[in-house]
């Protein structure tokens, strides 16, 4: 066996300070490779008249070498999952398999135009159909739409279906119950559906209690559109009362929406469709390894139970007599939430991942994701006590409560100091119900050695907070840029490069 270093690792490297591309290059330089015109040239001015743009847009004048170096140098200022552990709670930053990238670039996927005739898209439609079936198998829903472009888009879609369902019953209930620990996208999606949030207080043990839900339902008789719940919750714990809560909501005429951001905790263990949930979005860019791309693209398929199928967005992919086709004839559908069919490139990647893992592999992923989080909790619980005594699932939520009491160091400082130790910080200050929250989600793709090193870094910071608090409070020290002035950015917004006066 090799000797493993379980202590913090050292980091150091050369980085170029890179000016904006607009400050580079020279007049007349270009990185374009354009074909020679083989048809008669035309006078744009004559054809376009008043609409003709006299002056070309002020774009950079740089060569391909300039552009390549610029974006390569910039890339080196990023942390990435391929560089190290990225324990962002609720974000599920797991390894993004390389084979997915190769497959998504096959011409039979990447080269397809969405307006092609169905007969020329059979492979793509089959892939979408198979992905839908696989997601149904994993989530326990009757059908899944792949159209939403991200999790929040999925929420919007799910709530639209809930609204359409009620309207089909001749009702327009307006209240949506949302626990106070929910992602901000939940209430924002409710507003986009002209409904109103009723915040629910999380119990002392971190769970949503049936009594709380019952009381809220009683306060709005006949006006409950539904409940939005994240399970496991943003405290990383399983909502044990979900079935009873769903029953209460159903009795009140409402539907249950589940935010599937934390689905990585449940694969092969719990099918949300069998827990009383009626609608749920799945983040392919979290649970199913499609890369996060520095902010997107994501993909937010939405699963529904049988009675909501008529309301799914249009079109759906259907299989008839061995031929795949698109069904646009869906009169009760909420319509479409975007152009074309969703982020298809992400569907290809997620399908590839699911087929590589198989049912057993996906279940193992969940098991190891939970094992990793619970293990970190065990290593860290003395200095960083969990905010709930309930067992952690895929993430472990702690806070700066203890450290703040003993020292002047806060969550932000801990996060920034972790950067010096070579890690991306966990999610901080979320959920909002936990002051100074640190939400740690290691995911299954991190090894025991990595977890040991990460834990030792956090414990070293806790020690430093006592012995050298200023070192922690002024972190990061190793990065090319120090803490940035966010107040200045907000007070005098500079949102684009401007030519110097």
């Amino acid at each position, binding site marked *: 066996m090799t000797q493993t270093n379980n202590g913090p690792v050292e980091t150091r490297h050369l980085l170029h300070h890179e000016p904006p591309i607009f400050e580079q290059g020279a007049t007349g330089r270009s990185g374009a490779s354009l074909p020679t015109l083989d048809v008669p040239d035309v006078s744009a001015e004559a054809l376009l008249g008043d609409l003709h743009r006299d002056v070309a847009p002020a774009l950079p004048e740089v060569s391909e070498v300039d552009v390549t170096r610029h974006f390569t140098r910039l890339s080196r200022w990023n942390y990435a999952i391929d560089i190290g552990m990225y324990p962002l709670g609720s974000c599920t930053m797991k390894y993004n398999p390389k084979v997915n990238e190769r497959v998504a670039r096959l011409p039979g996927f990447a080269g397809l135009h969405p307006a092609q005739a169905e007969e020329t898209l059979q492979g793509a439609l089959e892939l979408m159909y198979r992905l839908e079936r696989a997601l149904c198998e994993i989530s326990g829903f009757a059908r899944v739409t792949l159209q939403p472009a991200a999790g929040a888009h999925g929420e919007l879609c799910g709530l639209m279906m809930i609204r359409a369902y009620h309207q089909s019953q001749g009702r327009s209930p307006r209240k949506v119950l949302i626990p106070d620990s929910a992602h901000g996208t939940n209430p924002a999606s409710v507003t986009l559906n002209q409904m109103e949030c009723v915040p629910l207080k999380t119990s002392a043990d971190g769970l949503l209690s049936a009594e709380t839900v019952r009381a809220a339902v009683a306060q709005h008789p006949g006006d409950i559109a539904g409940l939005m719940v994240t399970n496991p919750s943003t405290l990383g714990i399983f909502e044990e009362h979900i079935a009873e809560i769903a029953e209460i909501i159903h009795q009140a005429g409402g539907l249950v929406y589940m935010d599937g951001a934390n689905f990585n905790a449940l694969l092969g263990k719990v099918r949300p469709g069998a827990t009383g949930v009626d609608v749920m979005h799945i983040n392919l860019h979290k649970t199913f390894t499609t890369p996060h791309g520095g902010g997107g693209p994501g993909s937010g398929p939405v699963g529904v139970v049988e009675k909501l199928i008529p309301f799914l967005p249009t079109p759906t992919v259907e299989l008839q007599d061995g031929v795949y086709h698109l069904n646009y004839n869906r009169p009760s559908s909420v319509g479409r939430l975007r152009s074309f069919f969703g982020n298809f490139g992400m569907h290809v990647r997620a399908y590839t991942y699911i087929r590589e893992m198989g049912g057993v592999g996906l279940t193992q992923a969940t098991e190891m994701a939970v094992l990793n989080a619970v293990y970190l909790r065990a290593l860290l619980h003395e200095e960083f006590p969990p905010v709930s005594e309930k067992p952690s699932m895929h993430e472990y939520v702690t806070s700066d409560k203890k450290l703040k009491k003993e020292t002047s160091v806060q969550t932000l400082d801990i996060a920034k100091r972790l950067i010096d130790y070579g890690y991306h910080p966990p999610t901080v*200050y979320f959920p909002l119900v936990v002051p100074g929250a640190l939400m740690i989600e290691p995911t299954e793709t991190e090894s025991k050695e990595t977890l040991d090193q990460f834990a030792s870094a956090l414990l070293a910071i806790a020690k430093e907070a006592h012995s050298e608090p200023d070192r922690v409070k002024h972190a990061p020290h190793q990065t090319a840029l120090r803490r940035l002035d*966010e*107040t200045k950015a*907000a*007070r005098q917004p500079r949102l684009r490069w401007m030519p110097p006066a």
Partner: protein
Amino acid sequence: MSKYPADLRYSKDHEWARIDGKRAVIGITDFAVHQLGDITMVEPPKEGESHNRGTPIGSVESVKAVSDIYAPLSGRVVKTNDPLRDQPELLNEDCYDEGWIAEYELSNLDEAKELMTSEEYAQYVKDQG
């Protein structure tokens, strides 16, 4: 300068009022400013608007939070502090003078009695805390 000047009256929503006959200048307290941190934007009420006590009249933002401003007293806005739009930092520098938010012509002078004195407010903040 005291954190809560004695000549002002205070609301539970952390606004202050400097009452002078039928008029009152209002703003937000040092406690509220500290809760938010560096103020990055102030949205004051509009001149001419009338508000009932306790209704939201504008908002204050920091980098990571937004907080509504509530009318501490009922009345009509006669003047607002325009420089705040471009210099929200005035609130951090001096929330009781340069950082005032609006001036009201009061519609119900009795309401003033229900506001807290400086000592009462100091105790209220302590109890919250």
